[in-house]
């Protein structure tokens, strides 16, 4: 069997698994966020928080909950790292420097998991398992909560109420993320991922001498790293490390975990707005882009353009033998089209066009299928822009799901899509204009520029993957990427929740013959086009300087 055929078969198996999970998981999540009942353990948690889960919140209150919880997360994680030297279970690692601790704290709270540290060299058990992995759960649950609040904005009328943030947060963790993670972690251990609390220990070698490993709760962190589209590896090599991703089965399973919630949320959406077909239209848009990117990535990586790859006879640099090119290409696209950023191959050593696809995938706003929750709300914002454009073409007031898209709504949507490009291009421009940041580049020329563009694209879009040649542990990058992650996560949430509040207050408008049928393939086509055009117009000049220049030269 040729590697290309094997790659295609792996893709088909993945699609089949996702299709099987789509309905049950999507329906289940809709039930979770619509139910009036509280589990006993949830009641204990609410008591601990001191919050009444039955109070309905308007959008400012919901947003305050999101921000307060996230601020507490940043503060806690920052202190945990700063105090690492005096905490037990730290494996002898010292306190993290202030700028790096700030960067890492914002990174994990913002669901980004950009890492400017070497996991196995910097973080002990307490910070990894009690700090970083916890944010992997809760930042994902925050993302889903905000998406659900937006969906309620469409589903509800003549009220400003969007649900209760604490209830949505706790349910996401207790009823969705924890159960899947427990099962997933055991599956990963069965494949060979490690799960222990042994410290740094020496292991004998074949030729004599010793290797030094650190143990850790790797499988339990690995599973939520993928499931919550977080991406922060326990080890520096992330999911390329054999202890995180031991064999081809764990590889496909991890890709499945990355994609399963973001795709299934479209079903949850359809269910909650009372039209499954509307969910299918969003799903079709996501799936079209995702498949298109995988096809292109497989083509360029198997075709291996690039002088060094021609010399080697294949683009295997930075890739593991057990995954091969197919398994690496699927992972690479899935991680950058969601907000995951975990890697099983190193994107900096992709072909020029391959690296460009990784960049472009993030620049689409990570909506195909996107992060847990953030993918859905990002895509719904794009849908609003698309109906607005369609409305302009025919001269009708645009509407979506029975809600009018007026000046107020379109302003929020426009602000949303402006945030990340402003951060990415602003900070990249500043880094190139200043003299010292450029010293961090490993490669020179077009690829060096791509390293910096990639870093801010990844940060502001909350992805977290890297063209890891860039030495990002400098005060400049720790601080600016930290800010990009923070603003790139929470400013859009402000606009999403404001939009949700505004939608929920409206009264529904009845469907007429002139209503744009947003559940039809025509709309899916329009939406794909809108996404491509907006992203293209925003980023083309920057892409031309980096990956396109590199790809065209070879």
């Amino acid at each position, binding site marked *: 069997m040729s590697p290309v055929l094997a790659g295609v078969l792996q893709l088909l198996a993945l699609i089949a698994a996702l299709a099987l999970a789509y309905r049950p998981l999507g329906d289940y999540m809709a039930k979770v966020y619509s139910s009036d009942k509280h589990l006993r353990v949830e009641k204990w948690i609410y008591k601990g928080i001191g919050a009444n889960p039955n109070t309905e919140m308007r959008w400012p209150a919901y947003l305050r909950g999101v921000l307060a919880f996230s601020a507490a997360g940043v503060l806690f994680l920052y202190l945990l790292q700063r105090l690492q030297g005096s905490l037990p279970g730290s494996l002898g690692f010292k306190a993290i420097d202030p700028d790096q601790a700030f960067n890492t704290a914002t990174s994990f709270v913002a669901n980004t998991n950009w890492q400017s540290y070497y996991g196995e060299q910097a973080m002990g058990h307490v910070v990894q398992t009690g700090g970083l992995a916890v944010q992997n759960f809760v930042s994902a649950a925050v993302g889903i909560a905000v998406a659900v609040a937006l969906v309620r904005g469409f589903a509800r009328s003549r009220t400003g109420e969007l649900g209760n943030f604490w209830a949505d947060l706790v349910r996401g963790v207790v009823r969705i993320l924890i159960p899947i993670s427990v099962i997933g972690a055991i599956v990963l251990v069965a494949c060979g991922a490690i799960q222990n609390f042994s410290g740094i220990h020496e292991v004998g070698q*074949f030729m004599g001498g010793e290797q030094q490993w650190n143990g850790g709760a790797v499988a*339990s962190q690995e599973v939520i790293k993928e499931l919550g589209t977080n991406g922060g590896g326990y080890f520096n090599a992330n999911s390329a*490390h054999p202890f995180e991703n031991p064999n081809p089965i764990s590889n496909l399973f991890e890709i499945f975990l990355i994609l399963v919630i973001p795709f299934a949320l479209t079903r949850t959406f359809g269910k909650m707005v009372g039209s499954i077909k509307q969910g299918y239209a969003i799903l079709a848009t996501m799936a079209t882009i995702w498949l298109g990117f995988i096809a292109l990535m497989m083509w360029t990586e198997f075709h291996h353009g690039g002088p060094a790859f021609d010399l080697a006879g294949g683009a295997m640099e*930075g890739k593991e033998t057990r995954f091969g090119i197919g398994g690496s290409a699927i992972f690479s696209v899935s991680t950058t089209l969601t907000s995951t950023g975990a890697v099983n191959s190193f994107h900096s050593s992709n072909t020029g066009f391959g690296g460009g696809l990784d960049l472009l995938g993030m620049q689409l706003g990570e909506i195909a299928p996107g992060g847990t929750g953030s993918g859905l709300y990002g895509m719904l914002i794009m849908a609003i822009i698309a109906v607005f454009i369609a409305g302009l073409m025919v001269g009708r007031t645009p509407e979506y799901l029975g809600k009018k898209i007026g000046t107020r709504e379109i302003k929020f949507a426009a602000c949303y899509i402006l945030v990340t490009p402003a951060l990415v291009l602003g900070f990249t421009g500043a880094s190139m204009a200043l003299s010292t940041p450029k010293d961090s580049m490993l490669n*020179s020329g077009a690829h060096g520029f791509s390293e910096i563009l990639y870093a801010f694209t990844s940060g502001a879009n909350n992805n977290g993957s890297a063209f890891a040649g860039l030495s990002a542990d400098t005060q400049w990058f720790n601080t600016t990427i930290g800010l990009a992650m923070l603003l790139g996560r929470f400013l859009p949430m402000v606009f999403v929740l404001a939009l949700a509040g505004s939608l929920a207050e409206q009264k529904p408008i009845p469907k007429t013959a002139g209503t744009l049928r947003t559940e039809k393939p025509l709309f899916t086509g329009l939406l794909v086009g809108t996404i491509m055009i907006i992203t293209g117009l925003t980023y083309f000049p920057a892409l031309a300087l980096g990956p396109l220049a590199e790809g065209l030269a*070879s």
Partner: protein
Amino acid sequence: MNNSVGNTARLLGAGLRALLVLTVICGVIYPLAVTGVAQALFNNKANGSEVKDGGKVVGSELIGQRYDLPLKKGQETPDPDLKWFQPRPSNGLAVNSENTRYKLIISGATNLAGDSGTMKKGDKEVCDPKAEEGLCAQVRAARDAVIKDNSTADFKVRAADIPAEAVTSSGSGLDPHISPDYADLQVHRVAEKNGLDAEQVEKLVDDHTDGRVLGFMGEPRVNVLKLNIALKHLVAEKG
């Protein structure tokens, strides 16, 4: 004003309490429960899939190792011990600033681009034959070494026969596998150095080749550590 400060403090307090409660669940109970189950059901795997030979641990099935000669005086990197099957290059393993290199394994890739170490030829970028740094230079050096090391009196390695993974570094730098093609390429040399028949060694490689899982997942591969252990036993039987 006082009121809003008080509200903010109350809200932050609620956020902090929520975080602490969820930390107990996600950061204490969950990992401990998973560790308990993992240790009970998959003890060896949960602890790193250690491989034993003659009662002694010789490494992990999952983590690659080097098979080198002892470091000679004045050498920075040791020469490979050609008696044993050789792994992929691992140029990406980071220099460890806290410990000495390789003492605590720091996984990592080279992150070098396909166009590093190139020059212009017309309007195309090509590998610069004189480049000493960059991916082109690394691949060229690895390729030359593979040809030199593996060519024996009656077996000449051609550049076109070398698989890509044999001359490139992996993502983790700890890749435990090589492709069956690269193992086959090493058979003649290994046989000669150990005084074995090439057929015997070839059979050894075939026995240690893992196909794709279920016929389509991943790529065919050979675990270098397991292969070398088997080789050691074969040599011992002969001797």
